[in-house]
Structures are given as structure tokens and as C-alpha cells.
């Protein structure tokens, strides 16, 4: 959580300094939820994170260099400058690379799980995340229904952070609570207060375990508030102050730190030391990537096919 927060704050400052091409999208306030998912998954599981899942990506095993390289467009990154920011992954390792189209990753994870079933693998879980707004897509509906029909071990984490870009929930859906949809799909539903790390670890952990044990798709609806703009270009002035001051507006990271201190599981000095070493780790990653080459149009293949012989040479 802390590493995700420090890394993203650094990326935001690089963005403000004009050192990043494209946008920067933070998971600020969503780290407890996302990290809980990443920590509940195992090697060999499938994970398709979305925009606000830096914490989950790290917990699932992403090296921070991959994040920094993708944001900064290093030729050495997993996407080699072909894709930026949150659009990254290593599908061969079960870490799928999202496309922008909201809702699209859910059915892709379903397919990954169908393949694992064909191969006779047992105890595998596939997880993906979406926002409140993304639940309004047709893709969301098709995929969750498919997962239910096939009884797949899917965990679908819905981060209800109250806004889809600027659109509040009452313009996005009309049901009382998104978790009520679970019964309509024939999947198990869970609710969690995502400002509370303990609750996230507990509820998300349970959902992952139930999927693993063969209880079919699990839908977790988490309530929280987006503590940043949609992206760093957005001041989010449309979020009412009263909401920020309410329980939902609490910062899960600050709350988790206070809990650790209260329980004396960490001393203030140790926390400061940990934060300092994480900041140094992030600074070093950025310094490393800043020395790396950018992609070179002259050495690009400019071929989209895995079978170059089938490329339409007239288009080359």
C-alpha cells in the first residue's frame, strides 16, 4: 500500500513537471482494497487489474520498474513504448494487460479460467476489478452472466468510489446497492468498507477463498471515495466537500498506519524509516528508467501480426 502510494505520488509529480507522456491515474484511497486482492491471490492465479490497482499489481508481484518504465515510455518496459501508464501486464504470467474499454477484461479472465479448466488445473482463481461506472457497460453484464453460467472461479471486485470521472452514482445506476445485483446473476455477493484494511483483507480474502473452493463467481462491492482526480489532469472540484469529510472520505492508508501504531505493531520511528526506504526505492527506480532508451521508430517492426508472413505488405 505504502509503496503504491509513494510511487503514484512520485509519478504525479513527474506528470506535473511535464515528464510523462499521456495521463497519470492514481489509486489513492483504493490501496487497501486493491492490495487485499493482490495479497489474496497466488502465483498461478489470473489477475486483470484496472486503472486504480497499483497496490494490487505490486502485491501480485509487479516490479515497480515495470510501472515506471511503462509510464515513462522506456523501450525496456513490458510494453516497449507501444502502450503507456496503466495499460501494462505480463499475460504469460497470469497478469493480464487491460485494454481501455471498461468491462472488457471480465470476459477475458473468464476465458483464461475456461482454458485452465480444459487443462485440468484445480484451485485456480481469476480476479479482475472495475469501478462503479464500469458496471453500467454491456460487457460487464455479458461477462458476469457468462461466469455464472460456467460457474467459474472468478472474483470481481467493484470499487464503488462514488464517481465515474465526474458522473455521480445516481446518474450511473438506479439500484439501491450494487451488491443486490449478485443475486440476479446467481453469484455470491459481498460488501466491504474499503477505507478499512482489516475489513478488506477479511472480505476479499474470503471471496477469493470461496472462489477457490468451487463456490463459483464472487462479486465484492467495496465502498470508498476516490481521493484524487479521475486523472492528474482533473481537480475533481465536482466532489462535494461534505462527502470528503464523511466516513467514506477517510484515507485507508492513514487509517491503516494509525491502526498499526495503536496496536504497537510498528513504532513511529520504524514507520518513518520504512517510508524513507520506500521513497528511496522509488527514486532509484525513476533514476534508472530515466537513463534508459526510448523506443526507436527506426527499429520498430511496424507489424501487428504474430505471423509476419501474413502481413499485408502493401500496407507496410
Amino acid at each position, binding site marked *: 500500500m505504502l509503496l503504491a502510494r509513494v510511487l503514484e505520488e512520485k509519478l504525479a509529480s513527474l506528470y506535473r513537471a511535464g515528464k510523462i507522456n499521456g495521463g497519470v491515474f492514481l489509486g489513492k484511497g483504493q490501496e487497501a482494497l486493491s492490495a487485499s486482492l493482490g495479497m489474496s491471490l497466488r502465483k498461478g492465479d*489470473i489477475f486483470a487489474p484496472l486503472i486504480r490497482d497499483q497496490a494490487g499489481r505490486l502485491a501480485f508481484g509487479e516490479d515497480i520498474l515495470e510501472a515506471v518504465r511503462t509510464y515513462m515510455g522506456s523501450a525496456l518496459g*513490458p*510494453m516497449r513504448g*507501444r*502502450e503507456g501508464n496503466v*495499460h501494462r*501486464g*505480463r*499475460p*504469460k504470467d497470469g497478469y*493480464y*494487460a487491460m*485494454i481501455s*474499454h471498461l*468491462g*472488457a*477484461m*471480465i*470476459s*477475458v*479472465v*473468464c*476465458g*483464461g*479460467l*475456461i*482454458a*485452465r479448466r*480444459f*487443462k485440468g488445473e484445480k484451485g485456480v482463481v481469476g480476479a479482475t476489478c472495475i469501478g462503479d461506472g464500469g458496471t453500467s457497460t*454491456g*460487457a460487464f453484464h*455479458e*461477462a458476469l*452472466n*457468462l461466469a455464472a*453460467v460456467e460457474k467459474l472461479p472468478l472474483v470481481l471486485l467493484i470499487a464503488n468510489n462514488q464517481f465515474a470521472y465526474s458522473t455521480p452514482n445516481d446518474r450511473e445506476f438506479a439500484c439501491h446497492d450494487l451488491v443486490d445485483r449478485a443475486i440476479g446473476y446467481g453469484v455470491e455477493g459481498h460488501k466491504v468498507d474499503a477505507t478499512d484494511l482489516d475489513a478488506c483483507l477479511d472480505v476479499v480474502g474470503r471471496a477469493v477463498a470461496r472462489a477457490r473452493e468451487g463456490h463459483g463467481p464472487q462479486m465484492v462491492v467495496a465502498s470508498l471515495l476516490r481521493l484524487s482526480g479521475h486523472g492528474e489532469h482533473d481537480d475533481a472540484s465536482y466532489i462535494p466537500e461534505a462527502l470528503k469529510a464523511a466516513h467514506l472520505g477517510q484515507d485507508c492508508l492513514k487509517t491503516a498506519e494509525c491502526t498499526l501504531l495503536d496496536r504497537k505493531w510498528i513504532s513511529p520511528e520504524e514507520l518513518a524509516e520504512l517510508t524513507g526506504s520506500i521513497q528511496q526505492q522509488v527514486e532509484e527506480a525513476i533514476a534508472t528508467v530515466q537513463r534508459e532508451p526510448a523506443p526507436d521508430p527506426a527499429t520498430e517492426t511496424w507489424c*501487428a*501480426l*504474430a*505471423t509476419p*508472413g*501474413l*502481413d*499485408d*505488405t*502493401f*500496407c507496410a
Partner: protein
Amino acid sequence: MITYLEAIREAQAKALTDDPRVYIYGQDVGRFGGAFKATKNLAHEFPGRVLDAPISEDAMVGSAIGAAIEGMRPIVEIQYADFSTPGFNQIVNHAASLYWRTRVPCPITVRLPSGGTAGSGPFHSQSMEGVYAQYPGLVILTPATVEDAYSMLLEAVAIDDPVLFCEHKYLYYHLKAEGLPTEALPVGKARIARPGRDVTVVTYSAMVHEALAAAEELSGEGYEVEVVDLRSIKPIDTDTVLASVARTGRLLAVGEAWPWGGVTAEVVARVASEGLALLDAPPRRLNAKNTPIPFHPNLWGTHRPTAPTVARALRDLLRL
């Protein structure tokens, strides 16, 4: 005798037999055998590998992409090409970009029962190949013969990229061959369906047969029409097209899709830019009319190119 449709079934049976990574997913493809019976008995012969899908084209294609990431080679049957539009996003934005973005190939085959038949109307008749061809990262096949339906479908499944297999519904039952082929031209190579020296028709899929009938008609008038069957429209075998135009000096590109852009426009553009000097007359195109596809056979028969309209366009071109 084997029909075009049976060849498609046989190719799928062979793919399922030869490769444990292959499975079939689509609406009604299981016990029922598919809306056109292209998967007849396959669910029985290959238990657990021919799965009925909910009416969810986006999720059908999306799940095939996920399975391909994990090493499977899914065949997705879209019930009619027209209904691929709800799955468009996964095809053009996801399947087509996956390898380029991640270096993980996406070997999915999406079967699109395409083209018009009498009485099918605006939403069960479309030819979508030109729309999809605009997107990089896809291979698009348009078999015109029983032999190609069989061999190209087998090749489609073996290709490491997403393939849209545009099988023509009009040919399903109309077209018959003695048996299944033992050898075939590779994907990406066009075929001279009929040699000639006066004018070239470049076409594909069901229109190959309209062009062949028109060529027969014109042979009675003393003209020798060369018919080029593209077989694959992405990639297009531009060399074979140019070589034919070099022989005849005249080009008519015929397609069943709509006239704005598309395959025929692409063929004309290529010949104009690479082979203008080969032409003795302006290159011409013949496509469907620029309206939705009508239901009534009288209207439908006029909406799409047919042997008489191809013949008329050829006579016009030969007079130039």
C-alpha cells in the same frame, strides 16, 4: 459429394481431432449443432469441447481471447456475421491488438456466416469483412469454394493471429465438390478462378460465382474474362491482381459489401497506385447498393451484384 457447409463441419472435426487446444464456442453449437448445422454431431463426438454460449458476443470473443492467452485455440461461431457487432470491441480492440501490445499471440478463429440469401433481410445478410479489414492485427479469409472452406478453416485455426473466417451462407448448400481437398494454396495467395485476356474481375466469396457466370455469358460474345478469387482479403495478394491486370489491361472489382470504401476500393486503389500504366481503361467497381439489405427476393436480387449486372459492367468496361 460434399457441400461447403459440410466442409466447414469436417474442418472443425479435424481441428478438434488433431489439436487438443481447440474448442468451439457459440450459440446453439452444442447438441443442436448450430443454427446452420455447421457443428452437427461435434458435441457428441467431442464431449465437453463444443460449448453453447449465452447470447453475449462481446463475452464470447472476450473469453476466447482469455483462453488463447492461456494457450488454447478457440473457434467462436457467431450465429450471423451481422451479430458480430456486439463483439466488435473485443475483436478489433482486444484480439487484434494483443500480440502487438504484449507479445502474446491471440490464435482465435471467429467464424462469421456472411452475406445475403433470399429473404434474410437487413440483419441476417451482411458482409462485414471490409469493416474489420480496416483494423491492423487481423487475418480475414473469404473462401469461395468447398475446398477453400475446408483447407482455409484448418489453416485459420493453425494461424497464431486472430482470424475472421467469413463463410458465405449462400454457398452453404449451393456449392458441392467431389470430396475434401488434399492440398491447397496457402492463405494469402489469390487464385485465378478462370483465365482470360480481355478483362480482369477481382472478387471473392459468393461473388466469384456471379463473376464466373458473367464470364461464361461474355465468352459467348467473344470476350475472355479473367476471374481472380482473392481468397483472403487481409492480406490481399496484390501481386496476383497486378499480374492479371498486366495481362488484360482492364479491371472490375466486385464485392457484395456496401460501396463506400471496402475491399473493392482497396483493390482499385492498389492497382491505380502500382499499376496505372497497365490499365487501358479506368478501373471500375461494382458493389451492393448503398442501402440496408432488403428482405424481398426481388429487391435483394437487385441490391447485390449478380451475374447479369457483372456482365453489364464488364461490357461497359470493355467498350471503354
